[in-house]
């Protein structure tokens, strides 16, 4: 009898151990668990209670530090809201954010790229912001028009734009000066159009040391796609039309033939990945198309004398690939927190001169006009790119299609496929992805 009893007790212990793990999930199905709970009950009694916000960002690169400093500055600037900063690894940020939204355990406020909003919306957890913005005193007209429009879905703002980051052009002033390619004001002396640009590279090649490449781009990574995208947009071409990808187009061919011709003529190097930054930084290339986030990286190299300008116009109209960091507010019952989150987002945009140190272009024109921003070297000279950025189309399949296109474009750069074959394959794969 005693033995049976002891078995029974053992079983009970084991079962209770396992079940206690489940209990939390059961009675809070509809609540946003991850949103910080401190202050929920007390706010009714004590009006001065601090509102705590959980804030997620994907800045595992060098920008993380700048954002952390901004959060600190925000926390010190007032005593009502306290933001708890959590930096996440860029690589798996969206799987994490999306899972947290789907599982009702999202933070109170989070950074999301404007290009990823379409993937987050199907969770039904993204709060439309217009009502909250009124309460928080956010004025949409203080944001850049291009940036503000990019966050409107079904007539409602669903995110607060913080910046624009685009692919722009950096060039080594010493090399271009030596080749006689600089104007008085430091801009590049070249004839208009794609031919003019290619000719400029050829002139450069003639005067550069043998181990310095006229142009450097990430010819086996996503930069190839971004540059191709910009060149297509400059010709007035489309990437998606009526919700369907348009990859294999005359504009697409012209753009890819231009990139490939630079590699074939020895004006740009094949087989280059993330080391494109280092190659330009160490003066082993004269011109590069790369992201604005490399400004901080480049300026840390004292021996490098460079300038940064918007992506050059090579076809009929100016355009550049770009994206925006925006702040989203996940749905939750505590409206006070949501309003606080919008206030915080607006504060970040207002004080984005701090954020611009990371290289990004602030989303509010007033910030661009501020002395603090203008005092930053390099940044102001490419700020105009925010007006010509062509945001990518809105689709839940955008990342998937981008990946498929990139795969083919890289094969073209390596000479595995011709331009025609590459674009045809990309079109086929993109169509297949859309049909799923």
């Amino acid at each position, binding site marked *: 009898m005693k*033995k*049976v009893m002891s*078995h029974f007790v*053992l*079983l009970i212990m*084991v*079962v209770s*151990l*396992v079940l206690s793990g489940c209990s939390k999930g059961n009675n809070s199905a509809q609540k946003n668990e991850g949103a910080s709970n401190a202050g929920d009950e007390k706010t009714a009694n004590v009006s001065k209670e601090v509102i705590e916000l959980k804030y997620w960002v994907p800045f595992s690169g060098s920008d993380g530090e700048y954002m952390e400093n901004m959060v600190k500055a925000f926390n010190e600037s007032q005593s009502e809201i306290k933001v708890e900063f959590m930096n996440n690894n860029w690589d*798996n940020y*969206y*799987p994490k954010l*999306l*899972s947290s*939204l*789907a599982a009702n355990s999202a933070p109170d406020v989070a950074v999301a790229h404007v290009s990823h909003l379409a*993937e*987050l919306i*199907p*969770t*039904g*957890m993204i709060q439309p912001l217009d009502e909250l913005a009124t309460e928080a005193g956010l004025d949409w007209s203080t944001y850049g028009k291009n940036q503000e429009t990019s966050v409107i879905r079904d007539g409602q703002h669903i995110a607060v734009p913080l910046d624009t980051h685009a692919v722009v052009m950096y060039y080594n002033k010493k090399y271009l000066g030596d080749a006689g390619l600089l104007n008085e004001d430091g801009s590049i002396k070249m004839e208009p159009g794609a031919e003019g640009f290619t000719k400029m590279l050829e002139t450069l090649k003639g005067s550069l040391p043998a*181990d310095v490449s006229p142009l450097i781009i990430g010819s*086996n*990574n996503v930069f190839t796609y971004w540059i191709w995208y910009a060149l297509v947009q400059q010709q007035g071409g489309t990437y998606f039309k009526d919700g369907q990808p348009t990859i294999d187009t005359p504009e697409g061919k012209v753009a890819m033939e231009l990139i490939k011709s630079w590699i074939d003529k020895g004006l740009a*190097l*094949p*087989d*280059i*990945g*993330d*080391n494109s930054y*280092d*190659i330009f930084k160490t003066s*082993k290339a004269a011109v590069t198309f790369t992201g604005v986030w490399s400004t901080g990286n480049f300026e840390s190299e004292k021996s490098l004398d460079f300038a940064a300008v918007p992506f050059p116009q090579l076809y009929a109209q100016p355009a550049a690939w770009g994206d925006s960091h925006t702040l989203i507010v996940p749905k939750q019952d505590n409206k006070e927190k949501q309003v606080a989150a919008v206030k915080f987002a607006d504060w970040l945009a207002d004080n984005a001169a701090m954020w611009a140190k990371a290289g990004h272009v602030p989303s509010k024109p007033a910030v661009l006009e501020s002395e603090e921003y203008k005092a930053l070297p390099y940044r102001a000279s490419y700020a105009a790119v925010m007006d010509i950025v062509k945001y990518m189309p809105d689709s*839940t*399949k955008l*990342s*998937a299609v981008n*990946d498929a296109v990139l*795969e*083919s474009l*890289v*094969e073209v750069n*390596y000479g*595995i*496929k011709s331009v025609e074959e590459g674009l045809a394959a990309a079109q086929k*794969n993109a169509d297949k*992805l859309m049909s*799923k």
Partner: protein
Amino acid sequence: MKMKSHIYKNYLTALAFLAPFMILYLIFWIYPIFKGFLGSLSSGTFGAEKTFVGLDNYRYMMEDEKFWSALWNTLYFILISTPSIVVLGLGMAILVNMKLKGTTILRMAFFMPYMLSVSVIGSIWVFILQSRTGLIAETLNSFGITMGVSFFGSWGMGWLSILIATLWWTVGFNMILFLAGLQEIPEDLYEAADIDGANKWAQFRFITMPSLKGVTALVILLQTIASFKLFGQTWLITKGGPGTSTTPLVHYIYQIAFRQWDTGYASAVSFVLFLTIALISLAQYKLLMGKKN
């Protein structure tokens, strides 16, 4: 009657001791596999409502070129990685098992990379192999030679790079397994062979090799399963490219789930991968272990 209650009690005791493991095993292994299979019958973007689509995902898979190329890539990697890891692991084990000076240091050196995480391995090998700024390219460059090959630029070179990185990373562990096997072999067998006048090769061929059969079978089995699960190295070193040429199955599954947000189809491919691994492991086990008896 008394007998029966005794057996019943025995079962209960066994169950009580098994329960802690069994319950966790059921919740974290069996239930997800079952749930994954159910998921593979649905369609819809991650985070949104799912719709039941029956076997549609499996039908799509049959016509999905990228799935077949990923499967072929995976099998190719198993074919090149398994023999090389067995030969290299055994060679290293024999080397460090010799009673020579410095073998302790060698043993440590060979095993060391295994303790690193895959992200470190990825960074190291990109740093060594990349064109222009890589260690090899820069070294050659300082002698005035331009590196003529591109380690990430084609199907063949891409896989060679992944193979080198994987070998460097994991061969130490297999060496330890072989080393344990070598030390199990009784010394007197070799002594007897010496007295009978057998040379070193004959000793290796007729004593060492047969004695290591079990370990070899284990290494092959573990390596096959590990190769099926190849992901980190391709994700970090070649990013699956150029094109899809170094994209193995798990890499593709990640893309489907977390770039295409198609969890249903990702589950379907995962399930096929699971069945393939189970079948191949079973066949290998029967084949390699069966010979013993």
